[in-house]
């Protein structure tokens, strides 16, 4: 490994009890830090930046679709816009989102540790992430890619656009993801505070753990897939291109062996966040702790057995389609166990209806719709009709955007006081949440309707009878964007003039709330001992309402 010297060079005279934000100064002290908290914050900033880029691409797509005629883009340009949106959102935003930012920041804190197991590897994974991002940015500048984020062959191996740099980007980002996964697995296995058994671990860590398993097991397969595709494109070796004797459906197997489990890389940490927020802001012990923990791991494992449900109309055999369809229903079981447990947690709790809870409720509402429409699509006969329509687009946005991003935003709000030491404006936060929620549903619920009526995806012009739905969807998208900008605005404002946060503003019980807000450089003074569960709240005083 490279021997980067961090901020811990000999001759250090800084105060170890100072906040991690101010312990050392200068850009280099951030870029080459070994502190998991700073790495987490840098990831957060980077991810939000790419979220902005991916979001702007989405707005471009929606603006084009305001009228049935092509007004803004040609077909080829439109392809490039939605590919930028998809590739950036998947590889740069959703996959790293919660684990790399909030996970990095809070995993050692929740375990009562000073750092993750391999701090240098952690920094390396961030640098690799930036390198991968540069490849994708280069792709953007050099004209973009028309293939969609899925890079299906033979189009991706024959089309004229900067596919190679996009492949390099996704390939590189994979390694960042693998290194983070290895780091988290080892940290959770080997570095828990004395007294913290597996059953006393906060559920966020269970979610992150299940995610890490998938990252280590699935990501190498996409790496080899993209590697082969690079050779296919450059040397036409004929593994995936049917004209040269290859098998394009084999590519889809390779691709979805990673890309289906990676859906759970995106959603499992969000499940973890929701498990935290729903319990802490209901001030009630989580309902079904072991059920939620075990279902995270179960989802991770079953998630590896269902990838063929993306390929029902690909030419895959009928037998495989039937098997994949059947197992897909199996994923619904652990997922439903979670949803019921969260609802059960709220029942009889002393619910604090703040912005964190509002985002949690938004998650529950949106994710349930996303999950159930996934079951429609798991039915072979229905999928033949729904495949490649807006119904599918709406479904995975309800899961990915509504699920992962609502969870992400809920987590950011929940842990903002800890990360920054500042409280945000709660009124604006509630208002922002309302706008985001309205905008989101307006954007994507209309797409369910369009899709069910036969509007195919990835077209830049369409029949006039879909216009009303498309216009509602576009209005929704801009509303959603406005809501997100409001959110960004008050969060940034809070850094400047927010109220100072106390150690534990929510009255939570997990270890990260036992240190200062923001935490000191080495997280805790002395050794932390875990002597209670993460959700052992005092009896609720119902007389207070």
């Amino acid at each position, binding site marked *: 490994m490279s021997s980067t010297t961090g901020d811990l060079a000999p001759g250090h005279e800084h105060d170890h009890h100072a906040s991690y934000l101010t312990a050392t100064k200068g850009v280099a002290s951030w870029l080459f830090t070994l502190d998991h908290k700073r790495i987490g914050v840098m990831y957060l900033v980077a991810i939000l930046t790419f979220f902005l880029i991916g979001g702007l691409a989405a707005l471009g797509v929606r603006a084009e679709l305001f009228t049935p005629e092509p007004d803004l883009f040609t077909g080829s340009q439109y392809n490039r816009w939605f590919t930028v949106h998809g590739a950036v959102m998947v590889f740069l935003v959703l996959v790293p989102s919660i684990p790399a930012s909030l996970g990095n920041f809070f995993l050692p804190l929740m375990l009562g540790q000073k750092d993750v197991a391999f701090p240098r590897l952690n920094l390396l994974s961030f640098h690799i992430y930036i390198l991968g991002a540069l490849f994708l940015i280069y792709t953007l500048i050099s004209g973009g890619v028309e293939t969609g984020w899925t890079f299906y062959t033979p189009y991706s191996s024959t089309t004229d656009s900067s596919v190679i740099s996009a492949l390099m980007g996704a390939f590189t980002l994979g390694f960042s993801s693998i290194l983070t996964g290895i780091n988290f697995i080892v940290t959770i296995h*080997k570095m*828990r505070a004395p*007294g913290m058994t597996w059953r006393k671990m906060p559920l966020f860590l269970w979610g992150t753990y299940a995610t890490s398993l998938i990252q280590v*097991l699935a990501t190498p397969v996409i790496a080899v897939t993209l590697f082969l595709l690079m050779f296919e494109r450059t040397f036409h070796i004929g593994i995936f291109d*049917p004209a040269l004797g290859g098998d394009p459906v084999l590519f889809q197997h390779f691709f979805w062996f990673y890309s289906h489990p990676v859906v759970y890389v995106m959603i499992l940490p969000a499940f973890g966040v929701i498990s935290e927020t729903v319990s802490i802001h209901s001030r009630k012990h989580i309902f079904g702790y072991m059920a939620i923990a075990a279902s995270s791991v179960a989802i991770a494992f079953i998630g590896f057995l269902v990838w063929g449900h993306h390929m029902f109309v690909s030419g895959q*055999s*009928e*037998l*495989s389609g039937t098997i994949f369809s059947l197992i897909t229903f199996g994923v619904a079981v652990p997922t439903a166990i979670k949803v019921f447990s969260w609802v059960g947690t709220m029942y009889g709790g002393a619910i604090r209806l703040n912005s964190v809870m509002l985002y949690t409720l938004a998650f529950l509402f949106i994710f349930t719709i996303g999950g159930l429409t996934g079951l429609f699509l798991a039915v072979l006969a229905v999928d033949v009709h729904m495949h490649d329509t807006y119904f599918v687009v709406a479904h995975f946005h309800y899961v990915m955007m509504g699920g992962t991003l609502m969870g992400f935003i809920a987590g950011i709000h929940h842990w903002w006081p800890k990360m920054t030491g500042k409280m945000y404006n709660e009124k604006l936060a509630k208002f922002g949440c309302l706008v985001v929620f309205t905008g989101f549903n307006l954007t994507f619920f209309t797409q369910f309707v369009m899709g069910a009526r036969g509007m195919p995806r990835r077209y830049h012009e369409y029949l006039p009878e879909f216009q009303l739905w498309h216009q509602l969807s576009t209005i929704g998208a801009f509303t959603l964007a406005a809501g997100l900008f409001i959110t960004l605005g008050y969060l940034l404002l809070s850094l400047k003039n927010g109220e100072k946060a106390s150690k534990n503003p929510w009255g939570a019980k997990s270890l990260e709330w036992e240190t200062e807000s923001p935490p000191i450089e080495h997280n805790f003074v002395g050794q932390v001992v875990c002597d209670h569960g993460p959700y052992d709240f005092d009896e609720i005083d119902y007389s207070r309402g």
Partner: protein
Amino acid sequence: MSASAHAHEEHGEHISSLKSYLVIFGILLVLTVVTVGVSRLGLPSDISIMVAIGVACVKAFFVAGWFMHLKWDTRFNLLVFLGGFWFMLVFFGFTLTDLGSRGNLIEANDNFSQRADMGAKYAEPAHHVEGSGGHH
């Protein structure tokens, strides 16, 4: 680390004798000769590949167990390593299931059509997956 939970990891490292390493190396050489020898017997292709993979698995067992010290490592590290192979088998299993059963329904349909004498239109087999011409 919860001290009690991981106390078993505190034991000293196992040092294998020079002789044991040489014995393992000898076994691996013998197995290499075996796999080459079997391949020249002219067994049917299916059996030949199974024997080859079988012998390779035995060799892998010795490399992993003795050279990689999994025999003396924690059970969990063994589980991690074997778990990786399990996911590899999942990948192979599902993908090969697809390759092996493509066109089955069409064939079954054709047979049914022929039997029911529903006309030559359906009797013409649209797909052949057997042979070396590739699929489709």
